[in-house]
């Protein structure tokens, strides 16, 4: 019997190694796998490449990873936030590498990785600083920039419900990067508010099929109300 459920965030991230590339879902607080990030911090590995939309704020999550000096490089669209002082300090001190990617290219490159494409021509960013040095091409009168897929060793995401086969559903705008990161990482670890019996998730309604998920960790967060 296949059971991808795993007990506790620490066990779920126990093989994330120094130098790993780690996608982290979430946009704002929605979909942020806080408990998995905490477990990753507790694990103590470093030299990580983090792929997330932001670069953390305040003292928890991605900001705490950066504060603890665990992040060699961050790939994101919007590092500057109201309270991103740990990133700001590390960046100004030259202690962290930043790859700044327009948000839609970030999503498209993650999706391309999951879909096995070698590269994509995207119109976003053409003619801007963020396309400097990149291959460009005119196709049917429009200009495009060649962008490469973003793969990762691990993805840490947060879903609403999961089952033992790894099928996932999400809740509202907490869906965001979760489904595409699950497809782009070698090992996807999903924290869910609830593990339900196989068959409880309507087959029409599964957003992320279990094939894209290797581990499901039930974690009841107290900061988000859970709807039925």
């Amino acid at each position, binding site marked *: 019997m296949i059971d991808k459920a795993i007990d506790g965030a620490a066990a779920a991230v126990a093989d994330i190694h120094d130098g790993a590339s780690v996608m982290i879902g979430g*946009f704002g607080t929605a979909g942020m796998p806080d408990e998995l990030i905490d477990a990753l911090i507790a694990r103590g590995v470093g030299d990580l490449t983090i792929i997330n939309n932001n670069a953390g704020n305040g003292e928890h999550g991605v900001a705490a990873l950066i504060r603890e000096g665990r992040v060699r490089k961050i790939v994101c669209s919007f590092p500057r936030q109201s309270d991103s002082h740990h990133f700001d300090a590390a960046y100004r001190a030259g202690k962290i590498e930043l790859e700044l990617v327009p948000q839609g290219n970030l999503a498209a490159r993650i999706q391309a990785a999951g879909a096995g494409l070698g590269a994509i021509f995207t119109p976003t960013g053409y003619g801007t600083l963020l396309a400097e040095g990149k291959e460009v091409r005119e196709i049917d009168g429009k200009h495009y920039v060649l962008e490469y897929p973003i793969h990762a060793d691990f993805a840490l995401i947060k879903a609403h419900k999961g089952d033992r086969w790894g099928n996932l559903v999400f809740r509202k705008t907490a869906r965001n990067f979760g489904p595409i990161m699950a497809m782009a990482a070698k090992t996807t670890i999903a924290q869910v508010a609830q593990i339900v019996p196989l068959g409880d998730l309507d087959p029409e309604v599964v957003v992320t099929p279990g094939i894209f998920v290797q581990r499901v960790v039930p974690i009841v967060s107290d900061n988000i109300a859970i709807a039925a």
Partner: protein
Amino acid sequence: MNRLNRDQMAARVARDIPEGAYVNLGIGLPTKVANYLPAEREIFLQSENGLLGMGPAPAPGEEDWELINAGKQAVTLLTGGCFFHHADSFAMMRGGHLDICVLGAFQVSTTGDLANWHTGAPDAIPAVGGAMDLAIGAKQTFVMMELLTKQGESKLVEECTYPLTGLGCVSRVYTDLAVFDVGPDGASVIEMVEGLTIEELQRVTGLNLNFSKSVEAA
């Protein structure tokens, strides 16, 4: 001169958004446009973080922090709205499915180039978010901004000096003093506030502006 305040600018933009339009309102000033869309007009607001049919802010205490907008504020979902993942959300933009995107700007050129993500200051930490995708994706990109900086320099320019967000992507610019169409043929003034003259607008912008017939007749 009846310079428009920010709410009046938002109301002016809202007038040009027809029923049935799919619209993304950028962070900051454009967010205000939502307050002036008439309730009887069905308009679909998209949020880049995977939401179509965005409704107003919830009552205090009713926030659901898994239901937020691009500015990470709590919002609501209209009946008939739906959720989707980030790749689909940006496919919606990049694929030309949105009718209108309203953005703020540092500068817009008379040919429609947009600069709104980065001042280019050497010590600034760059951050782009969805700006570049939004700028080039929608069928029409509207900009909403004060025409002049605090120092009195025109933000509608011959050529942007700030780093670009997108090339030739803006079609219309709404300001506190006038409304401009911009594009390959340069800038045309299609509306001015009461009390402003063609000569004065030429002077403060320092631009070679075209004026639509209705503006000239006014």
